C-alpha cells in the first residue's frame, strides 16, 4: 500500500468540504528517530560537550605554554576557559543554529562560574588547613596558653586555650543578652504589632546596616573612654551584642512572619489566650527556624574581628573572668599573630583560623540539623520504651 501526495490530494478534492480524513501511513518511510529526552543529552551531544573542553585544554596548553609567552598555570586556566567557550560555540554552530550556540555557551559560562566559586571556597579551606596543620599536631596547642611563649618559639610550647576560652565566654555573654532581647523583639513585632512595633521594626532593620567596626567604636567610646572602664572581655561581648542584636532580631522576625496564621487562629478559636498561643503554638512551630537564625547570628559574631579589636585587648594568658582585664579571642589572636610577621606566629595564626573555621562549621551543621523538618521516626527514648514495655518506666 502506498500513500503519496497525489492520492492524498486526490482524495481531498473528492471529499465534501469539512469532512474528516484519516491519516495515511507511509510504510516505506524510515522509522522515526526516538526524540532525545529534554532532560538528558544524547551521546552525540555529550561527546560534543566533553570533547569541546578537552580540545580546548589541548589548544590552551599549546597556545600558552608553547606558542605565546604566557607560561604558568593561571594563564593555562584562563586560556582554557576562554577557548572552551569558543570551541563549544563552534561545535554547536556546526550542527545547530544561533539559538543552540547561545544556549550552549550560556550553559558553559554559568557552569564555569559556579565551578570557579566552588574552587575559591575549596581553596580557602584547603589553604588554611595546609598552612595551619603543623601546630595542631601538638596537643598542647589546644590545652595550653601563650604565657611565656615568644613568637619564635617552636610548636611544642604554647597554645590557644586562652583564645578559645575567651571567644566562648564573650560569645556566651553576648548570646545571653541578645537571645531574649532579639527573640522577644521579634515576638513583639509579629504577635503584638501596632504602630510602635512598626517603628521598632524600621529602626532594627536600619541598624543591621551598622558596620561592625562602628559598633566596636561605640562601645570603646562609651565604656572605655567616657566611663573609664578598662578593656575587658565584658566590653568585647557588649560590642558583639550590639552588632548581633539587630541581626538576630531581624532574622527571628522573618521566621515568625512565615508561621501560617491558620495555626494562630485555630489556637485562639479553641479559647487559648494570646500568651498561650505564642508560647504553645507559635514558638514551638518556629523553633527550628529560630534556632537557625540564632546559630547563624552566632557564627557571624564569633568570627567578627573588628569589635573585639577595639574593645578587648589581647592577653597571652588564660583569663576566665570577663570583667577582669584583657581577654583574648580567636579572631584577635589570628590578627595579632599575622601582624607580628614571624613565620611560627603566622603558622599559629593559620592553625587558630583552622580551629575557628571548624567551630563555625560545627555551628553551621548544627543549624542545618535543627532546621530540617522533624522526621516521623520515633526518638530513641520512645523506641526503647516500646521495646521494653516492662522496664523502669512502667
Amino acid at each position, binding site marked *: 500500500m502506498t500513500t503519496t501526495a497525489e492520492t492524498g490530494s486526490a482524495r481531498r478534492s473528492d471529499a465534501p468540504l469539512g469532512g474528516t480524513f484519516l491519516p495515511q501511513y507511509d510504510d516505506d518511510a524510515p522509522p522515526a528517530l526516538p526524540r532525545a529526552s529534554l532532560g538528558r543529552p544524547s551521546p552525540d551531544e555529550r561527546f560534543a560537550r566533553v570533547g569541546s573542553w578537552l580540545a580546548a585544554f589541548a589548544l590552551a596548553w599549546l597556545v600558552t605554554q608553547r606558542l605565546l609567552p604566557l607560561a604558568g598555570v593561571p594563564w593555562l586556566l584562563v586560556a582554557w576557559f576562554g577557548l572552551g567557550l569558543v570551541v563549544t560555540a563552534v561545535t554547536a554552530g556546526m550542527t545547530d543554529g544561533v539559538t543552540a550556540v547561545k544556549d550552549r555557551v550560556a550553559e558553559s559560562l*554559568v557552569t564555569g562560574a*559556579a565551578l570557579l566559586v566552588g574552587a575559591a571556597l575549596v581553596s580557602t579551606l584547603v589553604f588554611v588547613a595546609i598552612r595551619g596543620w603543623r601546630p595542631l599536631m601538638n596537643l598542647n596547642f589546644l590545652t595550653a596558653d601563650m604565657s611565656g611563649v615568644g613568637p619564635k618559639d617552636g610548636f611544642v610550647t604554647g597554645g590557644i586555650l586562652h583564645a578559645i576560652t575567651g571567644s566562648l565566654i564573650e560569645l556566651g555573654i553576648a548570646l545571653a543578652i541578645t537571645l531574649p532581647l532579639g527573640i522577644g523583639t521579634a515576638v513583639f513585632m509579629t504577635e503584638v504589632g501596632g504602630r510602635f512595633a512598626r517603628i521598632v521594626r524600621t529602626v532594627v532593620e536600619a541598624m543591621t546596616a551598622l558596620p561592625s*567596626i562602628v559598633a566596636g567604636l561605640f562601645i570603646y567610646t*562609651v565604656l572605655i*573612654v567616657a566611663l573609664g572602664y578598662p578593656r575587658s572581655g565584658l566590653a568585647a561581648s557588649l560590642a558583639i551584642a550590639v552588632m548581633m542584636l*539587630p541581626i538576630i532580631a531581624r532574622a527571628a522576625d522573618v521566621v515568625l512572619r512565615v508561621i501560617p496564621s491558620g495555626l494562630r487562629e485555630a489556637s485562639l478559636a479553641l479559647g487559648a489566650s494570646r500568651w498561650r498561643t505564642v508560647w504553645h503554638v507559635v514558638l514551638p512551630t518556629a523553633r527550628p527556624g529560630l534556632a537557625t537564625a540564632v546559630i547563624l547570628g552566632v557564627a557571624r559574631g564569633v568570627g567578627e574581628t573588628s569589635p573585639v579589636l577595639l574593645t578587648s585587648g589581647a592577653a597571652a594568658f588564660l583569663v576566665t573572668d570577663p570583667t577582669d582585664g584583657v581577654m583574648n579571642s580567636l579572631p584577635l589572636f589570628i590578627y595579632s599573630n599575622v601582624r607580628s610577621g614571624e613565620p611560627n606566629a603566622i603558622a599559629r595564626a593559620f592553625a587558630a583560623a583552622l580551629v575557628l573555621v571548624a567551630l563555625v562549621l560545627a555551628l553551621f551543621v548544627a543549624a542545618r540539623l535543627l532546621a530540617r523538618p522533624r522526621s516521623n521516626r520515633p526518638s530513641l527514648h520512645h523506641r526503647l520504651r516500646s521495646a521494653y514495655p516492662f522496664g523502669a518506666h512502667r
Partner: protein
Amino acid sequence: MTTLPTTPHDVGEAVPRAVSRKGTGADAVFEHGARAVGASVLVITGGVGLFLAWQAYPTLQRYGWSFFTESQWQPDEDVIGIAAVLTGTVSVALVAMAIAFPLALLTALYISEYAPARSKSTLVSLVDLMAAIPSIVYGLWGFFLVMPYAAGMARWLQQHFGWIPVFAVNDTDPNAAVWDTSRYVSSAFCAGIAVAMMVMPMACAVMRQVFSQTPVGEKEAALALGATRWGVVRSVVLPFGRGGIIGGTMLGLGRALGETIAVVLIVSPAFEIKPRILEIGTSTVSSLIAGRFGEASEAQLSALLAAGFVLFVITLAVNTVAAVVVNRSRSGAGTDA
C-alpha cells in the same frame, strides 16, 4: 407539636456583652512585657545611631565641608578630612562588586536553573557556609594566597590597559626585565578580591531566593514554545528576578563598604585621593578607624566617630534602597503558576 418561644415580659433590654481587644490577666502581662522588650531594643539600637550622630556633630560643625573635601588625616596639625578614605572605601567596594556581581549572578542561575535537582540543597548550604566563614579567614586567603597572583594580573592590566587612568600605576615600568612587585601589592584591587569573596555568597543567596520563586507555569510555557534553557533564563527568570538581582547586589555593596579586617590586613595605608586601584596603598573608613582609635584623644575620637557615622549613613542608604527594590519586585505577585 411545636411550641413557639414566648417573650417573657419581665426581662429587661438585652445588653451586648462587652468585647475588648485589651488583654486581661496573663495576656496583659505578655503584651506589656513584649512591648517593654521592644522598647528596650529600640532604645539600644536607636541609641547607637543617635549617639553617633551626637558625637559626629561637633566635628562636622568645626570642620564644615572641608571634612568631606580634605584628604589628609593629621589630627596633630588640625587637618582632618575623609575625602581620601571615602574614595578608598568606594573603590574597594566597587572592585569587590565588579568581581562578585557576575559570579553571584551566574552561581545563583546555576543553582536555580542548571544544577541537578539532587545536588541543589547541598549547593545552597555551601553558599550559606561561604557566607558564614569569618572575614579574617578570607583576609588570610587574600593576603597569603591570592596577592602574588593579583600582583601579576595587576601588572598585566597596566601593561595593556595602562592608558586608562584607573589601571595606571605611577613610578614603575611594567616592561622592566625585573618588575617591581611591591608597587602592585596591598592595593585596593587586592583588597577588593578578598572583600568580593565575602559579599559574593550574600548577594548570591538573595538572587537565588528570588530566582527560585519564578512561576513554574511561565517557565514551562516558555519551554513549550520551544525555548532553550538559556531562552527560559533570559525571557522568564532574569526579568522576573530583576528586583532580586539589584537588591542582592546592593546588600552586598552595603556589606562591602563596611568590611574592616580583610582590608586592614591587606592594604597599606595611604591618604590621597587615588583612582589608580592597582597601585599600592589606599585607605577605607573602617581601616582608618581600626588604625587610629588607639592613639586618639577625645577630639580625634569624635572625628573618628564622625567618619563612622558617615559610613553608617551611606550603608544605611544603600541597604534601604536594596530593601525597597527587593520588596517592590514581582516576587510572588505575578501570574499564578
